[in-house]
């Protein structure tokens, strides 16, 4: 078992299976681990030809918990595949190192992956797509499909392949390099600005409260607040929602229930308008 080399075919096989199956058996206990077991199971004969005991150890190593943002975070299964291939050639790659690298990378990639993909890239594309969808035209949907897949398939393939090639070195490069902090910080800023933009463009809070005397509107609270700063009610709602979720640890469900109660009370008191 000395001359094991990762071929393009093996890498492609692992990539496709990771991309398809990462959440197939998702549950709160081991999360994405069953997909890793499948990915390595499919390559077990390539990595350890005929050695059933080693194959079993290989798959058992990946049974415990694994969770990250699976698409931009696909570099992690790539890195682990690179390390496992190195281990299969007889190099000294302790099991603990593989586990440690998985654990060290999955948190950061979960955070940055969620922030970049569903948090920034997808809302931007959808906002453009929604803008293109006038009078029932399907052009916005087609635009979204073409651009999203045209960008994401090459990007994820590149990340996965780079991870394989560099193996543990990639982990060192990512964790030990201060460049990553600056990149993540900068991308985080792009995300925050875009989220602010989309929140303003697509969320609405209409205040219906008016103080009317003798048929003359003396105070129109909605116009007043929006005159102070455009969309101030939406901004305040966003801040309260953020505060409850981030500082008070409310769940999304609890917030939605609060929105419902506020909507009902707001409607019947006339404070909120559709």
């Amino acid at each position, binding site marked *: 078992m000395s001359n094991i080399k990762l071929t393009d075919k093996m890498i492609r096989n692992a990539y496709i299976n990771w991309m398809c199956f990462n959440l197939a058996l998702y549950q709160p206990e081991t*999360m994405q681990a069953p997909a890793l077991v499948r990915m390595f199971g499919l390559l077990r004969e390539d990595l350890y030809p005929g050695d059933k005991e080693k194959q079993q150890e290989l798959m058992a190593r990946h049974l415990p918990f694994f969770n990250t943002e699976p698409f931009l975070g696909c570099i992690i299964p790539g890195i682990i595949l690179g390390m496992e291939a190195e281990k299969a050639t007889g190099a000294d790659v302790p099991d603990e190192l593989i586990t440690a690298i998985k654990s060290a990378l999955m948190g950061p990639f979960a955070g940055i992956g969620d922030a970049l993909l569903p948090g920034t890239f997808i809302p931007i594309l959808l906002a453009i797509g929604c803008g293109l969808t006038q009078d029932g*035209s399907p052009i916005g949907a087609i635009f979204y499909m073409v651009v999203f897949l045209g960008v994401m398939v090459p990007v994820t393939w590149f990340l996965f392949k780079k991870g394989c090639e560099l193996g543990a070195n990639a982990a060192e490069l990512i964790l030990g390099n201060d460049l990553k902090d600056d990149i993540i910080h900068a991308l985080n800023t792009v995300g925050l600005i875009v989220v602010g933009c989309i929140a303003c463009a697509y969320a609405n809070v209409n205040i219906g409260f008016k103080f009317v005397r003798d048929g003359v509107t003396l105070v129109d609270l909605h116009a007043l607040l929006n005159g102070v700063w455009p969309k101030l009610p939406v901004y305040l709602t966003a801040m309260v929602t953020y505060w409850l979720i981030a500082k008070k640890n409310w769940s999304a469900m609890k917030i939605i229930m609060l929105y419902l109660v506020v909507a009902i009370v707001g409607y019947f008191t006339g404070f909120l308008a559709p």
Partner: protein
Amino acid sequence: MQISLIQAILIALLGYLTFIHTPFLGGGLIGWYCIGRPLVSALFIGIILGNIPKAMELGLYIQLIFIGLITPGGSITPDMNLATYVALPLGVAANMDSGQTVALSLLVANVANVMATPNFAMTMIPVNIQKKMVADGKLEEAVWVPIWGNGVKFLFRFIPTFVSIYYGQAAIEWIVTNSPQWLIDIMTIFGNPMCLVGFAILLKLMVKKPTDLIYFTFGFALVGALGADMITVLVFALVVALIQFQIGRAAKKGGAF
């Protein structure tokens, strides 16, 4: 119009295929994050029902509620998948307006959450079988578990979607013709700020220090006060990020930039 049996089956199947946990349509990248977005689903539902313009019109409004949907590991968020694949076909069939469709999709999105926990609990069965297979050395069998094990997710997607659209259409037509205006108004008020929930979850991840909220406010003001479009905001955001990046590099090199 009436949704036929074949149409209901096709729509429910597509709903399952574009669910976040379904591997068979190219996984999350092609399924959940691409065809599964309400805007894109609308095109396919429109093709199945033979009414693309109406489906796109309603799909646009469902998309706007869920534009900021983030599903971070394990947390239970509004069920966009079921909302889209139930409310959109019913909306097209009953010729509902956007307000009624949004109300129905919000109702479905939140009611459907009761399925999340049993879904996770039942998924533990194939996961434990896979563990046992690896321990017993049945390696080939263990590789196949994620394929048949996904049948659990199929049960929790296909059946509720199919039942709701095929057997629900009569009920929905009745509700649509008889639903009082106050109910529609309340649902509209309820749905208006809904995308802020997803964004708040995201902000929790992204805001490292309180001053980071200024960037959010900056993006908000560009649109609210200056009326900037999406691309313009993106350009501004990239400029700010680039400057911040260069300052960060310069500070680490210890020199002026």
